[in-house]
């Protein structure tokens, strides 16, 4: 095996990381980017006269280095398969001083499933402290089929996670995960580059560092771990079963999780 192939395999997610994504709906990466890359991207972005929308990659081509980084690429291959594709839609989100928070929302329309066909890969080229308007996410909500209008009366949720991150962080989230931009309380702009990546084919086998000797034991704990605000309500057990569906699907197995399966997942 060549060093390049070995390195790529090392950068794939582990079973625990893949299972963490299934349970939480997101995965954070702090890639070891070339020195000065984050600063250079910020400078090019500062120099834009207007938001170029989908043309952001053409206008700031150094962004490709972020998404080609082996740690980022390894996570994307793990979640979407080797034949994944970058979507044509991408956007520079500029959170300006004095903004107000968005409401909680899921992107797109409400045709949800319990698979992973699309992820958001949000790159933050500078540090994002809590007062700079971080993106905020709610773990586990990628399993919820919720028209955004129904989320309008929520403000702060128990278990919400602000993405207060270091420069260079890439947050990969399931497309259906609840999220919102928050108010920028500073006098500086906050940048976030959102790129979408699509799965092009059904999984037929694990595309991450799958360890057949330990994976199911690892899965037992992750699939029945409490995340977010949930407690012992009926939602909690239903979510276990939906996680198990996704786990089977990721492995390329036939999805077969009968109602009541949660009882077999109790430790």
């Amino acid at each position, binding site marked *: 095996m060549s060093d390049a192939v070995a390195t790529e395999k090392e950068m794939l997610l582990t079973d625990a990381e893949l299972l963490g994504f299934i349970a939480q709906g997101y995965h954070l990466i702090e890639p070891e980017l070339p020195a000065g890359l984050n600063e250079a991207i910020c400078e090019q972005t500062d120099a834009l006269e207007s938001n170029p929308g989908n043309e952001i990659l053409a206008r700031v081509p150094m962004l490709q280095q972020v998404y080609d980084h082996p740690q980022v690429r390894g996570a994307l291959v793990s979640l979407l398969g080797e034949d994944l594709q970058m979507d044509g839609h991408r956007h520079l989100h500029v959170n300006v001083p004095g903004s107000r928070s968005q409401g909680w929302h899921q992107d797109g329309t409400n045709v949800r499933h319990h698979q992973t066909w699309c992820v958001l890969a949000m790159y933050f080229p500078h540090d994002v402290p809590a007062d700079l308007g971080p993106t905020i996410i709610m773990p586990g909500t990628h399993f919820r089929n919720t028209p955004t209008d129904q989320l309008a009366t929520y403000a702060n949720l128990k278990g919400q996670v602000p993405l207060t991150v270091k420069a260079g962080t890439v947050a990969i989230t399931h497309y259906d995960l609840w999220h919102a931009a928050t108010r920028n309380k500073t006098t500086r702009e906050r940048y976030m580059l959102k790129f979408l990546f699509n799965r092009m084919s059904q999984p037929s086998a694990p595309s991450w560092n799958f360890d057949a000797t330990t994976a199911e034991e690892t899965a037992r704990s992750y699939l029945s771990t409490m995340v977010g605000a*949930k407690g012992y309500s009926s939602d909690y057990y239903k979510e276990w079963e939906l996680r198990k569906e996704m786990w089977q699907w990721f492995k390329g197995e036939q999805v077969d999780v009968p109602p009541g399966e949660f009882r077999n997942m109790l430790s």
Partner: protein
Amino acid sequence: MANTKQQRQRLLYLHAQKPSIRADVVAVALHEPIADSITEVDPEAIDIPYPTVHAAMVDGWRVVHFPDQRGHFEDREIDVIGYEFILEKIEAFDE
């Protein structure tokens, strides 16, 4: 000259894990009856102010909307988080 006060309605949305007023609160949104007041997702928000709807009632909040126990039920899928209670406090505000 004495301040002029006006009675106004404060609203508190609490989402509890179950339709019981004793269930754990998992979401909160406070709406103050003040022009330009903001109710928003705040990454610096401190913890949920009341552990249960009952605790809010003890603090003087009055429930004006109860969730419907017979609401939509889906045996497989999940949607919104919690059950919505709306509470009010009538207080005097400067005009």
